């Protein structure tokens, strides 16, 4: 399957990356090349194969349900582009 300009714009929107029309048009052949190449995986017989999520067998650990950190508000906010009154500040969300 190949993707068109509309699809590229939709992917960009889902990715929250703004693109100009010219950028989106340039991406159509680029992304199609890559997707066309990865589609060769479709020819592999995977009957009965479970999708792999963890490469090295490992047990999920549980820890005691206790507070292990906190009281670091200023550190958390230290790199925020805009912090006010101890909060992250963003543009108005509700019109």
């Amino acid at each position, binding site marked *: 399957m190949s993707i068109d300009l509309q699809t590229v714009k939709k992917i960009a929107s889902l990715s929250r*990356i703004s693109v100009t029309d010219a950028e989106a048009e340039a991406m159509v052949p*680029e992304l199609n090349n890559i997707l066309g190449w990865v589609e060769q*995986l479709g020819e592999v017989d995977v009957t009965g194969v479970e*999708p792999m999520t963890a490469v090295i067998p*490992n047990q999920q*650990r549980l820890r005691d349900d206790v507070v292990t950190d906190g009281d670091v508000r200023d550190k958390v906010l230290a790199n925020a*582009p*805009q912090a006010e009154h101890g909060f992250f500040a*963003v543009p108005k969300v509700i*019109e």
Partner: protein
Amino acid sequence: MTDLTDLTVADIRDGFRAGDFSAREVAEAFNANVAAAKALNAFIVETPEKALDAADAADKAKAAGETLGQLAGVPIGMKDLFCTQGVQTTAASHMLEGFVPTYESTVSGKLWAAGAGMLGKLNLDQFAMGSSNETSYYGNVISPWRRGGGDNAALAPGGSSGGSSSAIAARLCPAATGTDTGGSIRQPAAFTGISGIKPTYGRCSRWGIVAFASSLDQAGPMARTVRDNAILLEVMSGFDPKDSTSLDLPVPQWEANLSSDLKGKKVGIPKEYRPEGLDPEISALWDRGIEWLRDAGAEVVDVSLPHTQYALPTYYIIAPAEASSNLARYDGVRYGQRDLPDGAGLQDMYAATRAAGFGPEVKRRIMIGTYVLSAGFYDAYYTQAQKVRALIARDFELAFEKCDLLLTPTAPSASFALGEKQADPLAMYLNDVFTVPASLAGLPAMAVPGGLDSAGLPIGLQIIGKALDEQTVLNASLALEERAGFTARPDKWW
């Protein structure tokens, strides 16, 4: 007197302890080399004062007769993907320009605790996405190597750990950290004539490393010798409760157990790594490598990894998928850049911030990842890739029933000129054809230099081992290192 910057990590550690030189003398020598090598663009931030502070602490501890850390007196470079408290950490992106972590990554913290000093933060491909170090927002890293015959074309140091490889080959640091998602330690090591090991997935904590593809990312050392890699890896490894995929296992004494005697070991030669059209010089080096391991006492057997050809396309679904999820955090709210056009709402701010903050390759991968995870395509792409990944891992399991380790080339070519492969993302991706399979299977793998090609550029060999068997990987690499006798170094032009 020996130039201190020609010494290995082991030489520096031992010479410092023996009183042959002070830690400060070592740090000053490397600081001077770093300051004089701007043309390589290997560092994003230089931290000579950090190197001197650690050196002074080591000298003081030694004078006071205190117990010295394993890396006391050794300055190193830190890939700018590791969060370092109080020192800008960018992942070579505009997005994180000015980001100064308020915490230290586990791996870098372990290195500092062992007495190592930081020479600076090393350049890399943006968010570790690239194989030539041409995607950094802070400019290309240049390899110290040049082709012979007066050809002064700027060559790629490999990627993504290209700052690390360039700096080590140019004697700006004796060792450095790298990270490897699909070959980002091994391919740059091969391009610059140094060594580097990606340990078993889970050996090194990922906590505090800027995430790219979490099921693949592993930290590892890069240095000029196998022994130096063993020394650093011991310090970098170990269980960390802050990383849910960290392995709760003791760290073996890899350095103490180094041995290049391979009697009783079987080396598998996977036929799929010799595709038609493989560079004859790479192929010839591989044949020499086989003889070297045989000379070290190993038995050589042919093995097959039938799904090898599917490893790269599998990787280029799984890695972008995970990246699209991991990089969702860059939203212009909590850290990093914010781009807020006039009158923009929250959604517009996200989109503008990410458009301005990410480079083209990062955007490309986020969008591929978003597409393969989107409704209607998830099973055809992502689930299928996860299943093929299982088959690739099973190929290795079956091969390891017949042998103890695998020998392959590290990269399909020597270094290429900057700009040569940038126009075609697919051509660039093919650089990782020999390194990606071990990444998908989470296996330890190491690159060691094997010699120079006819243009005078380094080419390398790769050892892949069983999960958790870094010792055999290091030992076989040592056997190669001893027989290759690789002493070539780039002529200083910078």
